[in-house]
């Protein structure tokens, strides 16, 4: 077909092309690195809480309440004399755990349902989408609060309530992506290659559609932390005296004029955590969307 010289030339071109078109390495991605640093630091703080926290976060010291920052209590104490820094550190553990876990369950459940509905279509898809529409008709917070009220307060019921409400988002996102992906020729090619529907869905479509759900999941963690904060504010959250940023903001706001740091610093932590997770989501979306050349 080609002369040896032409073939050699074409191959040299290919080799050069393979080099020049290689993808930017992940560590050169600014947003991703910022996200990893911030979220990583928070996770580290949460994991090392027993070592980092100078005091027991629930130990009261009624002789030393509402203390201003000092050498002993860097961020002062709250109205029960508990060390705010220690509560902040332990709070990271509770909030991050609840945030991640509350996302994990609906992520898995919603994605699997959405993928199956989108891929096979038919009555299954119709029924699922009607359910999704019903869920979307109610505001997220209202539903969560009602469900927590029904299930009773506590960490487990928060997971359950959030999962019951937010799986629909994942189902909807993944279904939409699957609808697009299943029309791609590479899916037809996989069918012609004799592959089963299950294999195509998991191995060929899955990796191409999950990135959107993962990116959404990052922002959803932020949402869930906010939800926990809100629930804590309404007295439906994590039961006191467990240290948790939401209840700390709630407790501290009484003293905003005298001891501003009591509410502001946990609030700042929420902001930092949100920022870190958003960066992580942005970075992941860069990393996970394959460079579509055209």
């Amino acid at each position, binding site marked *: *077909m080609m002369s040896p010289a032409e073939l050699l030339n074409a191959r040299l071109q290919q080799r050069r092309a393979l080099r020049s078109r290689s993808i930017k390495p992940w560590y050169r991605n600014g947003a991703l690195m910022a996200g990893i640093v911030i979220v990583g630091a928070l996770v580290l703080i949460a994991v090392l809480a027993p070592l980092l926290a100078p005091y027991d976060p629930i130990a009261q010291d009624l002789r030393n309440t509402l203390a201003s920052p000092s050498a002993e209590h860097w961020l002062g104490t709250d109205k029960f004399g508990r060390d705010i820094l220690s509560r902040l550190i332990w709070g990271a553990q509770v909030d991050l755990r609840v945030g991640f876990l509350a996302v994990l369950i609906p992520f898995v459940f919603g994605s699997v349902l959405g993928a199956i509905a989108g891929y096979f279509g038919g009555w299954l898809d119709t029924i699922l989408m009607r359910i999704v529409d019903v869920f979307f008709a109610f505001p997220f917070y209202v539903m969560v609060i009602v469900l927590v009220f029904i299930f009773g307060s506590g960490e487990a019921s928060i997971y359950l309530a959030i999962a019951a409400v937010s799986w629909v988002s994942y189902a909807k996102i993944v279904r939409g992506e699957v609808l697009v992906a299943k029309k*791609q020729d590479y899916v037809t*090619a996989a069918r012609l*290659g004799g592959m089963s529907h299950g294999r195509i869905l998991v191995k060929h479509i899955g990796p191409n559609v999950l990135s959107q759900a993962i990116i959404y999941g990052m922002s959803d963690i932020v949402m869930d932390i906010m939800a926990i904060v809100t629930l804590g504010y309404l007295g439906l959250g994590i039961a006191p005296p467990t240290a948790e940023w939401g209840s700390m903001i709630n407790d501290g706001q009484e003293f905003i004029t005298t001891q501003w740091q009591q509410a502001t610093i946990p609030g700042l932590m929420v902001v930092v955590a949100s920022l870190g997770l958003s960066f992580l989501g942005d970075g992941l979306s860069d990393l996970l969307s394959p460079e579509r050349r055209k």
Partner: protein
Amino acid sequence: MTMPEAQPLEGRPLNAEPLAVDPPVLRVANLAKSYDLPTSLLSRIARRGDKATLRALDGVELQLNRGEILALVGESGSGKSTLAKILVGSTAATAGEIEYHGAPMPARRGKDDSRRIQMVFQDPYSSLNPRLTVGAMLRELLVLHSIVPAKQVREESKRLLNLVGLEEDALDAYPSQFSGGQRQRIAIARALAVRPDILIADEPVSALDVSVQATVLDLFATLRRDLGLSILFVAHNLAVVQHLSDRVAVMYLGRIVEVAETAELFRNPRHPYTRALIDSIPRMSAGSVTEAFQLEGEPPSPFDVPSGCRFNPRCPYAVDACRTTDPVLETVAPAHLSACIRASELTELAVARV
């Protein structure tokens, strides 16, 4: 370049019993495909309006012989892509039969049935999974069909890449690292991985730049010669078809209207539509264009196929009989079929200048 020895059906007995006369590798008869378009809920409730039926294919007859390149040409809406999809089994026909080596092809194809007929797609960008390396893509197919023992999978992948003119280092690369022409080669390697004996290529070069087209066309010719593949080449570019194919089938509005060997078809077209197609080709040298075959209008909608000959509203040769009789595909010369009642009156074209 030397081709490693490769028999597409090595060690795999065919389903069909050997016959005295070699049957065509693929034969379709009376194939039809129609789609009922959903009407709106409101009109269904009101029970108004007939259900719209799109006739994509309507009585298609075609055979693909062993080791030939058969071109399928037609304009958009002619149903040529639908036919390709039915032949590979990714869409089911509404009616008609498909025979593979003389035996009927089951409606639901198993792993081994679908292996035998593979496809190369038009768009080299959507036909490769962006998240699989070329090596992973080939490995999956080779392992799934136990084409070679596990130890030889990498060796076989390299052989496939060499077969389509790519180097081994492509194995660890992702599709995004390749140009359109190279992607099309990778897609061809994927189709060949499962050792098919039929390749259906749906406009495989029309998304490529002219200078790249030639290398991919040559690849198809080489594969036919060295592997004995039978290739159905769906295309709209008649110059490409003339260059590559042995026989040509012309489709118009869901039916084959003319079939002949390439040189015969272009020299002596026996259907006015084929004649009009030839006269519409932009030419590099002053051609033998006659004003008699300038078509008016555009192909009618497949929702509303004209009665009689489906080409009659645009045909400069149409007579009254054309509006009532639906002509069938008949032999008008040796190995030359045409569906036109005035086929014998069409004159031979001036021989192309060389």
